[in-house]
């Protein structure tokens, strides 16, 4: 029973991980930028949700669309104004500039939000229900459902809508996309905005299940990176599998080895995947 409960907790956590990694994988796959500031955008999404909850008294789950919209606009502007300068540049330049962004955003967050730990605690925060002897925390379940729903939604968007197809076109063949009426600069900005919007929602959900402070970004970028490597960049479903896998692996590690070793497990898995199957468990990586 304990094992089943731990597995359930791992899966619920994993859904959230998948959503965190989704934006990173999308941007990586289309813009060929490993966005080291991805976690900082997750952090901003968490604070946006926090302030909408505490100041505007909006239910945190209803605040998510606003957090997503704000982060989309921010991401679009950051891509247009800053990242466009290094697009198709050497990998080192993109790493350097996104690392710099991460530092600046974190510092500004510390300046404006202070370094205090905060939590988003709606009245139903402690509500659980029982499922055949297993305890299912309501907030975690809602976060999980939203995360999986958004990931599937993005998948459908990329596969079946015209803008989604244009995004894939730019990532697969830039020259042909340009010749057939697609403006790569616009696609890049929209894609980066989508990536940060997804980060924003992931951050809001993270804030409902965990404490937030300005420094949570770095570790979340690293975890997102691990998931993107495991799941590959081609397919949002790979990111779901990678996220669930990582969530379960961390939960099992916490149970059998100790909660301080969860990062050893996640990055150990990264190293193993890179050695054994560098193309990712499902399909292609960059």
């Amino acid at each position, binding site marked *: 029973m304990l094992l089943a409960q731990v597995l359930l907790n791992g899966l619920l956590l994993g859904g959230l991980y998948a959503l965190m990694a989704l934006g990173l994988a999308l941007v990586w796959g289309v813009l060929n930028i490993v966005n080291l500031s991805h976690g900082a955008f997750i952090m901003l999404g968490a604070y946006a949700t926090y302030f909408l909850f505490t100041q505007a008294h909006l239910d945190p789950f209803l605040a998510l669309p606003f957090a997503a919209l704000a982060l989309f606009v921010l991401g679009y502007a950051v891509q247009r104004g800053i990242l466009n300068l290094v697009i198709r540049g050497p990998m080192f330049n993109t790493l350097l500039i996104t690392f710099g962004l991460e530092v600046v955003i974190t510092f500004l967050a510390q300046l404006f939000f202070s370094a205090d730990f905060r939590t988003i605690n709606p009245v139903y925060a402690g509500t659980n229900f029982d499922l055949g002897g297993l305890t299912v925390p309501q907030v975690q379940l809602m976060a999980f459902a939203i995360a999986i729903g958004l990931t599937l939604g993005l998948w459908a968007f990329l596969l079946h809508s015209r803008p989604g*197809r*244009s995004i894939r076109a730019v990532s697969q*063949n830039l020259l042909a996309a340009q*010749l*057939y009426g697609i*403006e790569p600069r616009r696609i890049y900005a929209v894609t980066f905005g989508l990536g940060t919007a997804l980060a924003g929602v992931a951050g809001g959900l993270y804030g409902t299940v965990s404490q937030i402070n300005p420094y949570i970004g770095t570790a979340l970028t690293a975890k997102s990176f691990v998931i993107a490597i495991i799941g590959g960049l*081609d397919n949002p479903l790979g990111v779901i599998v990678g996220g669930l896998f990582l969530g379960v692996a961390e939960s099992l590690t916490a149970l059998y080895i100790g909660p301080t070793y969860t990062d050893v497990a996640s990055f150990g898995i990264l190293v193993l995947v890179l050695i054994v199957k560098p193309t990712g468990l499902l399909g292609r990586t960059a």
Partner: protein
Amino acid sequence: MNAPLLTVKNLRAGYGEMQVLYDLSLDVHPAEIVALVGSNGAGKTTLLRALSHLLPWQGDVRFDGHSLQSLSPNRLFALGMVQVPEGRQLFDRMSVEENLLLGTLAGTARDALRRNLERCYGLFPILAKRRKQLAGNMSGGEQQMCAVARALMSGPRLVMIDEMSLGLAPVAVDALLDTLRLVRTQGVTVLLVEQDVHSALHVADRAYVMESGRIVREGPASELADDPEVQRAYLGL
């Protein structure tokens, strides 16, 4: 003869310091098939890249009266000037049908999309059979058909095709040339850029011969095919 659909006057272009095209001029009239032939390195692909704004250039180029200098690639595509680039450049990890759909203008109505798809499948029945297959997994000939069909999806007025026959079996080249003849009767103008001088001159109405970034000969395709110098230089006769 009608006013030309495409006029190129004194076009100069190159890569950085290296000039490739020198005061190049040519015309393409509506519903013509015009061949631009020349050996490797003559600057044929550079010309197409310049016309699609993938390279900076100077000169006076007009498409249907609009000066190209002020038109974005996007706008050119919307006006009906499309290119089938060298090496086909399909979206390899998408299905044939998705490749074709990406050849249409944004905002095309659903039933118009359907009609265009059916028209392209009519021109290339093999693509209808392969519609769900990934474009990158098809044979070279099928991929080239897919690339030409993608270019025709938007109902263009001018299709510029770069090295269509490169690496293809003769039977595939013949099938493609037949299709070009057919779409020409439907009002589509074709600029065929080819190293395969023999088949290009066979299908074209008029032709230009290019050497070292300049037009060195022009005239009706049949005359050029009989020109002893062209025969010696390009046809191996």
